[in-house]
């Protein structure tokens, strides 16, 4: 079984995309764990798929839609306990 090993740069890039800040030690640990997971998934490549057309889903459902109607009862009425200010805005640390 071919073993795919992710480079350190790739792990750092992925951690940035996932919004994670990793220590040197964690880069080492997660790097090898992620490489193992990839290799495990790669086993699927051994299956002959030459006669199978590609798909993005397996439920065989299609055209699941809702009518254009407001259902207020589904809206959340009370945001108490969440990080909202007195004007009902969510607040985060200033981003720019």
């Amino acid at each position, binding site marked *: 079984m071919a073993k795919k090993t992710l480079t350190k740069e790739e792990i750092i*890039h992925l951690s940035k*995309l996932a*919004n994670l800040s990793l220590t040197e030690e964690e880069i080492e640990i997660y790097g090898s764990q992620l490489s193992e997971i990839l290799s495990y998934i790669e086993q699927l490549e051994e299956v002959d798929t030459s006669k199978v057309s590609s798909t*993005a*889903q397996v*439920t065989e*459902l*299609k*055209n*699941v*839609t*809702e*009518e*254009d*109607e*407001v*259902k*207020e009862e*589904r*809206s*959340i009425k009370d*945001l108490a306990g969440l990080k*909202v*200010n007195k*004007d*009902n*805005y*969510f*607040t*985060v*640390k*200033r*981003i*720019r």
Partner: protein
Amino acid sequence: MYKYQPVIGLEIHVELKTKSKMFCQDSADYFGKKPNTHVCPVCLGLPGALPVPNKKAIEWTILIGQALNCSINKVSKFDRKHYFYPDLPKGYQISQYDEPIASNGWLKFQISNFKFQIKEKKFRIHRVHLEEDTGKLIHSGSDTLVDFNRSGVPLVEIVTEPDFDNSDDVKRFLEELHTIIRYLGVSDADMEKGSMRLEPNISLRKISIQDSGFKIQELPNYKVEVKNINSFNFVKRAIEYEIKRQTEILEKGETPAQETRGFDSVKGITYSQRSKEEAHDYRYFPEPDIPPLEFTYKEIEDIKKKLPELPSDKEKRLIKEYRLKAQDAFILTRDLRIADYFEKVTDEFNKLMLVQDKASVDIEKQQSLGQTIANLIVNKRLSTSLDPEEFAKKAITSTVTYIADREKMDKAVSKVIDDFPKAVEDYKAGKTNSIMFLVGQVMKEMKGQVDANTVKKKLIKILK
């Protein structure tokens, strides 16, 4: 010898005015509402929530695609586009990546150049897809405030091919597109409220001209995108600024940075926001919670039947059917309400004239009835807030002369010519001002019951 030619493409976002949001049933009418009152587990991205697409939003996107002469793809799907930003509670936006609802269209219309020559131009549409809008951010002190009422409102993205080489064509294209969207009734397309947002991308192509006249074109190896502009004029100015800025960089032998820029409408300049390399790894993958969309030929055709007559077709028809000047047909068709109003008034006018004894009326013959009505509307001589029948009645009063009155006028004119030979002679000798004296005398004869302009025309005709 060489020169630079602009290569410009457009991305346009249009918010649909559906009642509910794209993937949940909160009201999509967020403008001016208390923050975070139209939110639910789906649009807040809470775990376990299931998004279900809004059927009307899908139909309207197909309709927009059809209005832009696109082919509607029989199979389409939603994808997740990942990035971290506080306006996006899920960590991804549901959008469409490789299977948009519509693709490969075009839009063509008449453009007059700086010499006022009219030319038909055609611009290709790359694709039209459906996605969800994001929340609204307000930066305040050390905080950023987030309102998710807008998060999940259906948003259509229209992408053109890079077919533009100047800012005037871009502006005209955007105005045409705006009019079409308003005709379809699928969006307010209100620039100030942000329900239509514009993003031009601009680069410059170097064209070297050999002594033999042979041209060598080099494709630009960079692209600058200017984000979120909310006025056609700002787009025009942003493009003009970018062409100047990029030309200066290229002439120094450098390459402009591939980046996203903002537009400062006060200073009239663009400024760097973020470089594209770091922001472009969206890791699109198919949205596992939403099964694909499939349309039959019949479904697509049924939606197409709902397409109204589009502005440029209406413009052509008005010119032909009512014998309007091209310029007036253009003005009337910019607003569907005004175009409809024009046709209703013309219809009422005709009905009222039928009731009149035909022999007793004499409309000014040199222009069509339609043009007469068009003049009254375009020059705002009568208000379009009047009921169409009311408008038609007033139009008749101001444009139709009855023969009985005309005979009276003719008599008065003859009498005045006999009574004031001196004024007549003066006029014939070139003192054109004396015509006004004669007009005044006729008005006096008729106790003001006649239109001064009509009298003047009549006098000029006789004294010629």
